[in-house]
């Protein structure tokens, strides 16, 4: 039996003003696993804080949860900042009933003296809650057990619904009345989104369910609802805020009952490091120093493997020439195949592969350490002066490794205009493939200006 499971990573890709996250997926990644003789198909969704926003990754996540026909959705939350992540949990529970909450990073929480009462959280949320430490396999198998139970309906989650202000509940009901009951999506959730009149939702519904909806009816009810809300002094633009307020109110109450802090200053060491990394005096010098170190290691360190590879390819070339001579091949053929194709291939691999093999792991270390968002934070204001966003600092860093990867990474930028600017200017960052060429030209034309006598 094939059970489909959705795996939703909630830690976001990037920020521009606040604290850090480190989700890496921007599209969907799939995987299968075998657990207790059941094959599970897992889909990893983009990291997001909420499903209401309009960025690409959030739309992908939302579309998959709504229309992906999954048997179960796992929402992964960070134990160290549970309140903020419960926003996403509640939003997911509004879309689908088959939800499992996975409270991750319990070891980090323990280090900071944060204790999360998982049983109580389960009873308050109405859905299964599993605590995990992603590095320890034992905890993951408990998660998979719960997944199998939910998929086979041994456990039937009853998610807690967020009840909004009475007037909002009234207009939700009004909208729900005009939604066809044959739609497989939760009508309350759809009603809420239609009240917001999110065009993209309607086209997504039509596209994925291959039906066409009567937009005029929805528009009519929406206008009536807005009129009712305005009579009660809620502007149309404030509706979303009110909805999020209600959700956060529930989240706050739950967290008060469920989280116990043994230390009041649990994030002090993190803050101290942050204060140095983003300080006036040390912020930029540290950044430039790290960049210089990374490049120095890449360029100097790549010399040795380059030399080695170059020697090997040279040896093989001699052998090849010998073989071609032996079979009396015409000189034009030897020229094309050996002196042309093979030699070029050897040069390119020997020169370009070592720097890449060194740069990308270094970049990964920087990324895993969580330093990249601090770079974006430091440079954000400068980027804003250029009418773009601080997230571009991240795509530019990626561009040092490979421009193509940097350009693909630009999808983390929400605004289309800023995304275009980031894509176009990414080519001005020298990528690893261009380094050897740039260094050669610089040495030839400019290095000679600094010849020592």
């Amino acid at each position, binding site marked *: 039996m094939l059970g489909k499971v959705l795996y939703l990573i909630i830690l976001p890709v990037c920020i521009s003003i606040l604290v850090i996250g480190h989700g890496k997926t921007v599209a969907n990644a799939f995987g299968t696993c075998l657990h207790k003789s059941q094959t599970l198909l897992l889909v990893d969704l983009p990291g997001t804080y909420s499903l209401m926003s309009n960025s690409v990754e959030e739309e992908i996540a939302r579309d998959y949860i709504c229309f992906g026909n999954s048997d179960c959705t796992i929402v992964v939350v960070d134990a160290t900042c549970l309140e*903020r992540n419960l926003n996403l949990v509640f939003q997911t529970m509004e879309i689908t009933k088959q939800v499992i909450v996975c409270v991750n990073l319990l070891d980090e929480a323990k280090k900071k003296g944060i204790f999360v009462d998982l049983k109580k959280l389960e009873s308050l949320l109405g859905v299964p809650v599993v605590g995990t430490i992603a590095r320890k396999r034992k905890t993951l198998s408990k998660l998979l057990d719960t997944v199998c139970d939910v998929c086979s309906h041994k456990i039937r989650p009853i998610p807690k619904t967020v009840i909004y202000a009475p007037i909002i509940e009234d207009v939700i009901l009004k909208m729900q009345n005009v939604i066809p009951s044959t739609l497989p999506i939760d009508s309350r959730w759809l009603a809420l989104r239609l009240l917001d009149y999110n065009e993209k939702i309607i086209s997504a519904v039509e596209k994925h369910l291959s039906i066409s909806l009567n937009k005029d009816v929805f528009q009519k009810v929406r206008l009536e609802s807005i009129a009712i809300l305005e009579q009660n002094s809620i502007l149309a633009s404030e509706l979303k805020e009110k909805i999020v307020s209600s959700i956060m109110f529930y989240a706050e109450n739950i967290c008060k009952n469920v989280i116990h802090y043994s230390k009041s200053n649990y994030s002090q060491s993190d803050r101290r490091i942050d204060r140095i990394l983003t300080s006036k005096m040390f912020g930029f010098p540290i950044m430039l120093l790290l960049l210089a170190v990374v490049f120095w290691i890449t360029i100097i360190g790549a010399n040795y493997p380059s030399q080695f590879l170059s020697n090997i390819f040279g040896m093989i070339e001699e052998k090849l020439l010998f073989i071609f001579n032996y079979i009396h091949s015409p000189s034009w053929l030897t020229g094309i195949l050996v002196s042309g194709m093979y030699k070029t291939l050897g040069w390119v691999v020997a020169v370009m592969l070592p720097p890449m093999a060194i740069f990308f792991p270094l970049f990964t270390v920087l990324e895993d350490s969580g330093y990249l968002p601090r770079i974006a934070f430091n440079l954000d204001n400068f980027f804003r002066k250029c009418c773009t966003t601080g997230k571009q600092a991240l795509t530019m860093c990626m561009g040092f490794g490979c421009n193509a990867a940097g350009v693909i990474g630009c999808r983390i930028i*929400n605004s289309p205009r800023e995304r275009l600017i980031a894509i176009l200017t990414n080519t001005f960052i020298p990528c690893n493939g261009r380094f050897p060429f740039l260094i050669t030209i610089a040495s030839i034309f400019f290095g000679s200006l600094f010849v020592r006598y």
Partner: protein
Amino acid sequence: MKSFTLNQLPINQEAVIFSLNCHDEIRRRLLDLGLVYQTKITPILISPSRWFNCL
């Protein structure tokens, strides 16, 4: 009870959000993070590039 804009709020000074008057894009981001009316906030870091504004 004084009201500030976020940039006027000194570091480590706790405050309560009264309203969000901002660009749509930023408003959406703030809502996603759960920063709504009556949420307590404390600024803890200022970007160093802000200081270069004065130059």
